[in-house]
């Protein structure tokens, strides 16, 4: 269970998060939607402690995320970054197996490589990419390698920052299925940021819409279409006219 209460974050004069309240039950899939620049990525980074929130409280299973053992905490997480964030000095398989080759989860090299290749297969990449470097792959391929890295150590909680942006529709479908599978089969808790309404419907148990630094609306995905909230309606139908300003 991840709970956020009144989380605030500002960068200088830019007041990005203005009191976010949200809770994500274990083993469920939460999808965050909202215009670009509304602080969705910052929100995930606050939970992971990569960005320190200024006010409010974030707890994981009742424990404040800013206290307690950091290594133990992070070992439960996997994260796909918006830009992939692959290590460009390492080969693809070494990126995927990064966590498996050091620290508490250290495995023999051959085994780590095998797991990496299996995870790459799950994101639709063949073994021939394993020995390439990130710069030799297209943006969409890098994104999928990032996804493979995020799930490599079978984490309990996985964050996906725009997992299908830059992918073709078929590959998006593969990734949506994969995320759903990870939640259903592995019982993981997932938080996904996406702008793609197809993904939202394929991945989400619950949806939260971030707007103006707060959670504007949250509820089960089945209620997404029937909610009268004009912000949500504008967003999911992609209308230029509505309460959300198009110049932000």
């Amino acid at each position, binding site marked *: 269970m991840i709970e956020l209460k009144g989380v605030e974050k500002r960068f200088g004069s830019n007041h990005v998060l203005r009191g976010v309240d949200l809770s994500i039950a274990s083993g469920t899939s939460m999808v965050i939607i909202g215009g670009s620049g509304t602080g969705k990525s910052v929100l995930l980074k606050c939970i992971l402690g*990569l960005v320190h929130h200024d006010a409010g409280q974030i707890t994981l299973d009742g424990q404040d995320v800013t206290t307690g053992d950091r290594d133990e905490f*992070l070992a439960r997480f996997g994260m796909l970054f918006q830009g992939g*964030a*692959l290590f460009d000095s390492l080969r693809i398989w070494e990126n995927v197996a990064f966590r498996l080759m050091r620290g508490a989860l250290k495995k023999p090299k051959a085994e780590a490589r095998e797991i990496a290749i299996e995870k790459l297969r799950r994101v639709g990449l063949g073994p021939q990419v394993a020995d390439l470097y990130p710069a030799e792959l297209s943006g969409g391929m890098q994104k999928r390698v990032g996804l493979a890295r995020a799930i490599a150590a079978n984490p309990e909680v996985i964050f996906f920052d725009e997992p299908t942006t830059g992918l073709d529709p078929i590959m998006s479908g593969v990734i949506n299925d994969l995320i759903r599978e990870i939640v259903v089969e592995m019982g993981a808790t997932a938080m996904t940021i996406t702008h793609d309404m197809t993904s939202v419907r394929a991945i989400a148990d619950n949806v939260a819409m971030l707007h103006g630094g707060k959670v504007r609306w949250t509820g089960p995905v089945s209620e997404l279409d029937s909610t009268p909230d004009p912000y949500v309606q504008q967003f999911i139908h992609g209308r230029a006219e509505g309460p959300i300003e198009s110049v932000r």
Partner: protein
Amino acid sequence: MSLLSPVAALGRMTLGMLASFGRVAIFAADVVSHLLRPPFYPREFLQALMQIGWFSLPVVGMTALFTGGALALQIYAGGARFSAEAVVPAIVAIGMARELGPVLGGLMVAARVASSIAAEIGTMKVTEQIDALVTLSTNPLKYLAVPRVLAATLAVPVLVAVGDSIGIMGGWIVGVQRLGFNSAAYIKNTVDFLEMWDITSGLLKGAAFGFLVALMGCYHGMNSGRGAQGVGKATKSAVVSASVLIFAANYLLTELFFS
């Protein structure tokens, strides 16, 4: 008001500088405190050693060769004013070993290494690779900074030793080819006058300069601003601060060693 504003600006600048000195000192202490604590990253260390040590050899060697040659010409010309041309071998050797070898070697490494470390780590920062390291339970300071700082601290003295030898050789070439010294006498003169401490003190300086160069590269890289502009600024700051710190440290160490 407007009369005082330059004073206020000066004050702000001083405070800003003091604050960044403090941050650098904390960063340095952090790096040093992690040197002996596991986990260690031998692969990253060896890579850094290659990058910093091996690939800097040509540029350090060339710098030393030309400097040694020029030094021989200058000392010959200066010595001729009071018929002391014979001091050329000894002064070239002492000058190279104590001052020019470590300082010029350090500066060349600052240009080559501080910049590339800052650009590499800065790019990692702006592309979220540093954040990714953290989420993969790896301390970026330990994984990125410690191997590089250790490698530079060990590699630069070796570079300085090589530079010293090549510089002295440069002096010998000019001495024998251009200034009419007898080759054997030149070498004997060099060996007779050069003391062990001349060399060791230069190597110790080299270690200090190597530490500073890598530290500045890592510090500015990890604190890089956002975007390509941020990385550019980090790279520039790394080279400038490493160079200035080399001169400052050189003066302090010279005071410490020789006065």
